[in-house]
């Protein structure tokens, strides 16, 4: 039934288009007889007028809608570097928005002012080196400013993380994130992809004693105002760690560990108050296509006050203690290993 409807509808549409075409052709032939010397018709005036009209309507719409859309933009960055990249973004947007506006005034009003008129003749104006020089140098200077400011910010963001950073490891896999903290020794144990199995999904190497106190929470917690270093890896395909509120993004690459460090500036509680949304949570998303569940790789991140963070950190139970059976099954006696750790100290 639907198919019949669609087919008959399409045929009808084609017939209508055919008739319109026929009429337009006949009309133009009839008109041309009267005014065969005319180069253009009334349409030329209509088209010329539509450009400035579109300009006015278009820019009013942009202005009006930007006001509304702003409501749904992300709130002010919750990280130190995010403030500077946001500033750069709005600065650049201001500059290019201005260029967009000015060029479109010219581009959309010239067609109106210089539309074909029988008595007019176009100006033979093939070149002007001064003008060319002006619009080479001015964009070049603007670009130079943007490059330099961008370069300073970029170098600041990508310089090596300070040694006192809070460390944690984020691993992407199809289709969720897993997180590991170094535990009380502040050192992440080794890992290797051949150690991965159904239980030990991060492939932690438990023969490395540093692994024994590592814990793997269900939410990321980080302390406000401290340097936080994310050690990022993937165990299958490319993923990308995206923390939109902190302006953080870095790909997770199998075989090549990556990292990103930043300083969070607002706790989850502060953000909830600021937004008036008691359910607000910082979220971690994936931004590198990774398969059917790409759109659902959500993980919660909580920013605590440093004291709360310490409290949370100390409450966490190491993965190894929770999974003693597993360790026994791979031949590691956790009690004796722990003693070894103790004697090391």
């Amino acid at each position: 039934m639907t198919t019949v409807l669609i087919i008959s509808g399409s045929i009808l549409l084609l017939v209508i288009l055919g008739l319109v075409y026929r009429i337009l052709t006949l009309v133009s032939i009839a008109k041309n007889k009267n005014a065969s010397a005319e180069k253009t018709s009334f349409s030329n005036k209509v088209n010329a007028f539509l450009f400035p009209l579109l300009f006015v309507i278009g820019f009013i719409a942009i202005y009006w809608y930007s006001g509304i859309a702003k409501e749904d933009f992300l709130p002010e960055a919750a990280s130190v570097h995010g403030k500077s990249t946001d500033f750069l973004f709005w600065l650049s947007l201001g500059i290019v928005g201005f260029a967009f506006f000015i060029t479109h005034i010219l581009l959309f009003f010239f067609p109106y002012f210089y539309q074909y008129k029988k008595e007019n003749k176009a100006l033979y104006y093939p070149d002007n080196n001064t003008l060319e020089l002006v619009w080479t140098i001015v964009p070049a200077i603007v670009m130079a400013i943007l490059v330099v400011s961008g370069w300073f910010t970029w170098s600041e963001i990508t310089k090596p993380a300070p040694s006192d950073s809070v460390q944690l490891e984020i691993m992407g896999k199809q289709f969720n994130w897993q997180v590991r903290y170094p535990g009380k020794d502040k050192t992440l144990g080794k890992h290797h992809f051949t150690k991965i199995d159904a239980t030990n999904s991060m492939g932690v190497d438990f023969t490395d004693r540093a692994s024994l106190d590592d814990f793997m929470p269900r939410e990321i917690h980080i302390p406000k105002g401290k340097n936080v270093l994310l050690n990022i890896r993937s165990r299958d395909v490319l993923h990308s760690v995206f923390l939109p509120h902190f302006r953080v993004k870095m790909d997770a690459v199998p075989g090549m560990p990556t990292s990103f460090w930043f300083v969070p500036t607002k706790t989850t509680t502060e953000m909830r108050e600021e937004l008036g949304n008691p359910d607000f949570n910082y979220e971690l998303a994936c931004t590198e296509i990774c398969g059917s569940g790409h759109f659902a790789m959500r993980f919660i991140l909580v920013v605590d006050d440093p004291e709360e963070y310490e409290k949370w950190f100390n409450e966490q139970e190491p993965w190894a203690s929770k999974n003693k059976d597993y360790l026994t099954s791979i031949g590691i006696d956790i009690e004796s290993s722990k003693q070894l750790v103790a004697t090391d100290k």
Partner: protein
Amino acid sequence: MASTALEQDLTASHDHDEHHDHEHVENFFTKYVFSYDHKTIAKQFLLSGMFWAIIGGMLSLIFRLQLGFPDANLEVLKPILGDWITAEGKLDTEFYLAAVTMHGTIMVFFVLTAGLSGTFSNFLIPLQIGARDMASGFMNMLSYWFFFISGLIMFVSLFIETGPAGGGWVIYPPLSALPQAISGSGLGMTLWLVSMALFIVSSLLGGVNYIATIINMRTQGMSFAKLPLTIWAFFVTAILGVLSFPVLFAAALLLIFDRSFGTSFFLDEIYIAGEALSNVGGSPILFQHLFWFLGHPEVYIVLLPALGISSEIIATNSRKPIFGYRAMIGSILGIGFLSFIVWAHHMFVSGMNPFLGSIFMFLTLIIAVPSAIKAFNYITTLWKGNIIFTPAMLFSIGLVSLFISGGVTGIILGNSAIDIQLHDTYFVVAHFHLVMGSASFFGMMAGVYHWFPKMFGRMMNAKLGYIHFWLTFIGAYLVFFPMHYIGIAGFPRRYYSFTNFDAFSSYTDLNAFISIAAIITVGAQFIFLFNFLFSIFRGRYAPKNPWKSNTLEWTTPRLPGHGNWPGKIPSVYRWPYDYSKPGAEDDFIPQHIPLSETKESNLPGENEMLKELEKGAS
């Protein structure tokens, strides 16, 4: 002296014609199918490009329905999509990714590379430089048929059970290398790679031919400084293609090895589907470097022909010389050169060394300068013109607008610090759909409207063209401009739905709005399709030079036959932009009119040159 040379030329071309008359017996296959004639090959590329544009457009509507109306029941599409619609009437998530992937691949390669450059390079190069055909008609024929087979394979991949490739048009491994990771990386990906390998062969055969023809076969007097800007653009485009496509070929080949022969060029330390793979030592980042070494020049392979076409059309219909001819050539060359050294700006957050990021940010932002020159030159060409709005002219002005609005956001994205947040969000989608997708598409449309009379000897209906333009122009902005807002809000690309995240749960209205705008815009293309097909058979007969243009193609008969000019190929005496020259009787002087016939309008320099020539002749 001069007259002897002229006579020789005459006899030479005369012999050539006789040769055609006597020996060239054509049947249906040699004339329309395996044709050596550049005009027929151009039409083959155009029709194939249009076919692919419909498929690519329809795919975009399918995923726009999903994005705009995530709750809708898509049971109606079951007859077309079969099992890709789940029992609950939802689009399959992997099919969504496959649709996105195929939309990108088809639009970038089959529509905007083959359909645009293939059509107009083939059609215009011999006609505008004054040559009887391409340097090698045989290679040119092969170029089309390699493209055809490539397309056939890609088309077949749409219908196989595991679906077409689904890892994004950039096919980053390991996702694209491992069938365990996504079903599209099975047979679909193999077909994708084979198809692209053949596509690259086609593109190289075409490119080498374009370059050889432009360098060697220009008619008498057609120096590089007298070439129309279209030809300059096609020339640089062909060079970009010849230099960069082989790199994609290498990447595709290595990926084929990784997929089928157990090598590890791009694979390292992978545990998937319950087993640790034996592949170690490769680098997924290496693939990204190789891919974007083509991928970025590809953007300009798509865009430059469109810019060349619009230069020609804007000058013709403003009845003014293009402003800054030499600056335009310079910026084409500059853009062409720079396009090779900016590729890693697609990879700022890929994990590559941040120092490399700084270098590529610097190089990327330089490219804004030649682009700005081009935009300002177009605008100055309109200034004090006497503008006639043909549909081609409207599309060209539209192109300049889209080139600016999409180009300026490139300055933002090229800044590595800002790109951290915007990378792989809808801001990027908005940017390249405006500057590369829409602008190039508009160039293609402008070209079709402008050269249709030369292609088919008939006129397209102008009024339908105006309606088509305004719907498409406004539609393109309504679809892609709002995506900036969604991008600023952080929405990632290639998401099946946004409901899983609180951060991305806004803008449902805007997404629905974009989808509706997309449906209308795609629908408007059927006006064009109808106009195009109907006018081939029923359009008014075209006059010889309908737009009163200067370039050589308008000196051929209404429907040029094999060899393009029945008699001698015209010689060229002037640049192609002598519009509204002071003192001239009409507002245009075609390239083949000698300076000696236009003494009243010659510039002082030209008169001196003429005197020199006359002295030499006597």
